[in-house]
């Protein structure tokens, strides 16, 4: 069975929580990507900004110095490397998104009861990876 690990892109483009809409646009254009993860100072992933979120911000007439934290979505659409490609497609279809982040759980140096693990993004699987799978 084909797994997410076989089709994902390793490594994740990130911006920090103080980045602006303009910063995100530059990162997306420069690296030709359609989504970035937003990380906090402790390295924990706080959210996700996609090209659709940028489009919505433009339509709403937001200024280019809008903070990413105002337009990001919660970092909830995640899978692990062992998830099947079909299951990843089902999640994308159901949640109407074009990408899922691939995470590994890690115990942080200082664990708290509310946050016993850090979910470290190690890669991303997108609708174009699904297209590659269908092409085979």
């Amino acid at each position, binding site marked *: 069975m084909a797994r997410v690990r076989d089709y994902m892109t390793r490594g994740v483009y990130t911006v920090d929580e103080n980045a602006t809409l303009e910063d995100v646009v530059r990162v997306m254009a*420069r690296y030709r990507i359609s989504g970035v993860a937003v990380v906090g100072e402790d390295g924990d992933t706080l959210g996700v900004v996609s090209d659709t979120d940028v489009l919505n911000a*433009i339509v709403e007439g937001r200024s280019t110095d809008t903070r990413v934290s105002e337009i990001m979505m919660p970092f909830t659409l995640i899978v692990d490397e062992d998830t099947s490609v079909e299951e990843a*497609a089902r999640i994308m279809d159901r949640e109407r998104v074009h990408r899922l982040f691939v995470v590994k759980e890690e115990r942080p140096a200082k664990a708290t009861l509310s946050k016993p693990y850090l979910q470290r993004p190690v890669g991303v699987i997108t609708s174009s990876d699904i*297209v*590659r799978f*269908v092409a085979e």
Partner: protein
Amino acid sequence: MSLRDAARVMRNEGISGLLVVNSAGQPVGVVSDTDMVRALSRGIDKDSSVAGIMSRSFFGVSPEATLQEAARIMKENGVSRLFVVRGAHGKTELSQMPEGIISISDIISAMAGWG
């Protein structure tokens, strides 16, 4: 054309959508990466025809429209690309080949150049 062959064209050309034409060369639908995700999630065979999963609606924008207008049409209709057709604004008939296509990534590239 099968889903597999359409996916190969998309993969090889590095694009996320294709215009589907009939034997007379007239546009009859659009197939995108989103349609491929839906097909796989529903267990549709890779060798079945794109006609079964394509969208039969076309969304367009006029070549004179601003990027802001194009962005609004995309958002209102939940699509990631628009066909550029004279006089079009939203859902449109596509009786002939469009002048071009504009996608979200084109809008983002243009914005990056504004600064």
